[in-house]
């Protein structure tokens, strides 16, 4: 065990853990919102993330013509280019999520098939998307040109906090609280919450179930797309299987917080990001996964519905 690293590298570990955690938060919204309304684990969400990363890279490389030799941008150009990448990523991921629901889940739902069929369908869609992109890209990783110069905004001693990690934290927090407010304060949000509480009662109250479910997939997919954009801003690489490990982590975060619960996803994502960072630093990276899943098992042992599973019904989607 190496506790000295925590002393000398506390701030980078904390900030990087929070940044990673916020990316998990946004992706886990994709899992948790869909689970809230359909009681379905949308395994294709990791591939929704993957297509979002490719959307960012393609807009940057093919639409703007940036490459590895391009100097980082500034001023309006930076704002415009990053904005376009963000919108493209959210749009592509959101629309892909809606299409996945239409093609893979809606008919099964209409036929009243059991949840196992939908689960297999979700896994099937995940594999189709991943393999499709693998074939299209010849399995080659794609790097994302650097749009934002990575300078230190704040310095603690000889340790700097980078602008891109701060951007992730601030922007992801704004997005999360916007979605939280949307779900809690708007009519459509109320409809989403109603469907998550009782599908049958919602129908009787005149709620258009399909419309609400499509909207849920669109919002969850868009948030996953935003996470993909932020991921590309920090890590600047993607490949066909980029969604696998990060999707698994986000799903774990959703379960940790209480799947189906918006604020559970928030606390679950942040807890997981920080846990991963400090476990890797103190115990060694090889113990990171063991520690995370040990904690998950312990939490589920005492709180089977996760940290916030059934306790905060009013925030459930």
């Amino acid at each position: 065990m190496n506790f000295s690293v925590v002393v000398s590298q506390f701030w980078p570990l904390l900030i990087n853990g929070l940044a990673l955690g916020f990316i998990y938060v946004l992706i886990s919204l994709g899992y948790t919102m869909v689970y809230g309304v359909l009681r379905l684990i949308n395994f294709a969400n990791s591939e929704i993330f993957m297509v979002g990363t490719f959307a960012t890279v393609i807009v940057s490389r093919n639409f703007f013509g940036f490459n590895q030799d391009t100097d980082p941008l500034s001023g309006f150009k930076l704002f415009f280019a990053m904005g376009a990448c963000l919108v493209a990523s959210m749009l592509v991921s959101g629309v892909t999520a809606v299409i996945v629901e239409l093609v893979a889940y809606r008919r099964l739902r209409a036929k009243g098939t059991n949840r196992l069929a939908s689960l297999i369908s979700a896994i099937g869609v995940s594999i189709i998307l991943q393999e499709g992109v693998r074939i299209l890209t010849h399995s080659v990783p794609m790097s994302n040109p650097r749009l934002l110069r990575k300078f230190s905004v704040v310095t603690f001693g000889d340790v700097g906090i980078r602008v891109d990690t701060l951007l992730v934290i601030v922007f992801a927090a704004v997005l999360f609280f916007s979605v939280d407010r949307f779900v809690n304060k708007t009519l459509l949000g109320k409809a989403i919450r109603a469907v998550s509480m009782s599908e049958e009662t919602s129908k009787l109250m005149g709620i258009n179930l399909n419309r609400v479910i499509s909207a849920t997939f669109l919002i969850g997919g868009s948030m996953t797309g935003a996470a993909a954009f932020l991921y590309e801003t920090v890590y600047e690489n993607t490949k066909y299987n980029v969604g696998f490990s990060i999707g698994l982590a986000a799903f774990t975060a959703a379960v940790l917080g209480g799947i189906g619960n918006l604020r559970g996803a928030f606390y679950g994502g942040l807890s997981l990001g920080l846990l991963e960072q400090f476990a890797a630093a103190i115990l060694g990276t090889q113990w990171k996964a063991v520690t995370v899943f040990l904690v998950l098992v312990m939490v589920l042992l005492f709180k089977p519905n996760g940290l916030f599973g059934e306790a905060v019904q009013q925030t459930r989607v």
Partner: protein
Amino acid sequence: MNKNSKRVLGAVAAVTLVLGTVAVTSAQAATKTVTLVYQGPLTGTDAQTGQDEFLGAQTAVQMYNDTNPAVKVKLIQADDQGDGAVAGTVAPGIAANKAVIGVVGPAYSGASIASFPSYKATRLTMVSPSATRVTLTDTKSPDNGYPFFHRVVGNDALQGPAVVRWSIDGVDSPKVYVIDDQTPYGTGLAQAAVAYIKLKKINQVGSDSVVQKTSDYSATVSKIKASKANVVIYTGYYPDGGALAKSLNDNGWNGVFAGGDGVLNDAFIDVAGKAAAEGAKFTAPAVPFETAASAAQQAAFTKATGLKTAAGHVYVTETFNATNVFISCIKLGKVTRAGIQSCVATGTFFALDGKTILKFTRQGEVVGGAPVGGFQVVKGIIKYFGAV
């Protein structure tokens, strides 16, 4: 038709039949073909390595076939993605193909281990251009390929010390941090490097083990910075090595990033970005083809592959050499699996330069070892600095 005419016709028919048979037999002999397989990562994140290596096999086969030999060689590809799990499903199919008399490969150590049961069971000889894990030829190890596995490269017992020597070359008071990627190749090379570090009493300030396909290396970077390391040795493959080098650079670390042959690839520069890749050092038990090949061999390379030069492509020479081991045996009339195995195990062969002798030990290593080369990224290009 009189009796004489019938005799003449009969004689003509007989001659025609005999000549025809001879002609058919000659034609069949002329078109006899044996099959060699190249096995390596042709798709997947490590595809570049396999595609580079295949160029060497292509060149050797084309050069041989262009001499119009009695027995031609057909070269086919087997894609194991450099992954043991995939190799375990690919190898049985190759082993069952009776036309295949030898495997150029497997390229990777993990894939080799997963392929051994199939090839040993069907007595199929392997000559790998790049699988370097020590235990592959260790008859006491449970994952060895004896007696069918051979390799034309030096193993990690040679590369481990070399990567340490090359990484600290020119560094005052080196403080080394070693990271492996948890693969059979990565852990084996890391063990060899650490053993040498201890032997030479070099200051090792830390180590880590990060699973492949990790997105976020920031915790590892924090530990490296806390340890004040000025040399990082990464024993894994270039997609992950590139991401780690980028993360180190983005977080203001300015030491020497070094890696073994798994990281030696042009794609490393693309993944890491030019700034992070600049100055990175690599070792490989490999000699660049463009350095070692004659003008005629360079021309044959261009003819076979359509590429002007082999520069930037790794393990072309070694794959050329591995393929030529089989071709030398085929030239001696060894066209069965048993014949090939006996020939490869006991024969004496020549490397690309026509002078270096390749002969295998009983365990499948090259007698006398093989040189380990040093490489470095200079102005965005990987340059060869000779044996280190």
